[in-house]
């Protein structure tokens, strides 16, 4: 059994599910996806990307030079997409149970 994805990894994979992106693009997208709750900094982003690459969930896509600076794009691999789907299913299943039980409890939430 694989461990649950950590939230930053989950968000990074989610960002890449829309297509290949470069580091800064992933950072801003993760902030958007999480509604501003998670703001990845460069050190955390690249440590996570390194691990996801080693695990084969993410791979190098292409490079561009913009304003004299290197942009390296990353994309989701098929195992990465599978993993993201499994994680999303697991989360929504848990959320469904939580909502159901809250309803039984008669909570206003």
């Amino acid at each position: 059994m694989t461990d649950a994805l950590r939230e930053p990894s989950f968000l990074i994979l989610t960002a890449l599910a829309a297509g290949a992106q470069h580091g800064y693009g992933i950072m801003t997208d993760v902030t958007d996806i999480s509604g501003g709750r998670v703001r990845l900094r460069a050190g955390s982003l690249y440590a996570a990307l390194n691990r996801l690459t080693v695990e084969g969930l993410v791979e190098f896509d292409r490079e561009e030079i913009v304003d004299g600076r290197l942009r390296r794009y990353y994309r989701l691999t098929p195992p990465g997409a599978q993993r993201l789907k499994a994680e999303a299913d697991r989360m929504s299943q848990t959320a469904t149970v939580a909502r159901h039980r809250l309803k039984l409890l008669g909570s206003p939430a």
Partner: protein
Amino acid sequence: MTSPPQPPQTGTAMRDDLRVSEADRDRAAALLGDHFAAGRLTHRELDDRLGAALTAKTSRDLKRVLADLPLPRNDLLELRYRRLLALYPASYRHVHQDEILAVLMTAAPADSVRPTVAEAADLIIGAIRVRYQLLRRAGLSWRRAVALTLAGGLLGVLAGTVIALASPPLPTGAEAIMLRAANPTLDYARLSDTLDFMDLRVPLARAATRLGPQLPLPYLEAHTEAIMPTRDIVVFRVQAPSPILASRAAAAVGQSYIAFLNRRWRPQTDPAQVLDRARIVPGESLAGEIARDGGVAAAFSVMVAASGSLVLVLIRPRRLSTS
């Protein structure tokens, strides 16, 4: 036409004629130092310009000194980011340095000239995580990894102490919070411990009594920054007026802080002795461990930067007992 009624130079001329403060002169001198370090000025040019900068009366005088040098902001900021990126393993840096630098420079606010403490801590932790990932991939045992990184010098010491204890991989701040929310029974220290962990008043007061009148308590309190990027690591930085004072402060603050933790944890080693024996030379670092019941209760690394600040990184393993 929209040209102003005054002679076009007036506005600038007036600003240029404004008298500069001591802080302005110091800032210009620091910039010259950085340009010299980057190889843009010869020793002699640096001397001449420093003389001119430190005796400058008006803004124009300072501008003249810096006129043919690139804009400081990007340069300085990039230089500082590069210093932090030097923490990453060379093989990783070779492939990723340029892209990470691009991300850092793009994300930085327009007027920033130095990384924030949080950002610096994030890069330090990032470097440690990447080192750890590489070593684990190479199938090294942590003992071997520590031996290797200890041999690697200043930055290796920092990483080595962390790698020794970082199993499983260290979470980032956001991940730590997420993990805790997901699994409240995870083996983190209790919250009350954490609060004590960050309470610098007692150790700083103790350090101040050791340091004497040169670095009194109000100064230490005003010049100490602490950050806890994860629940297992505390990074704190004390600014001192000179490298020599920073070196003394490193010993006093580091020792007091660790002694303070010792009393709470009742470990068996007294790392105060380690710090006492060693004079921490600016630009060098010192690392040690706090042992308890035959296991490692915490590890620390102290560095004194040549700029006169000290950084103490203290790492608590998640499991205090022997495994």
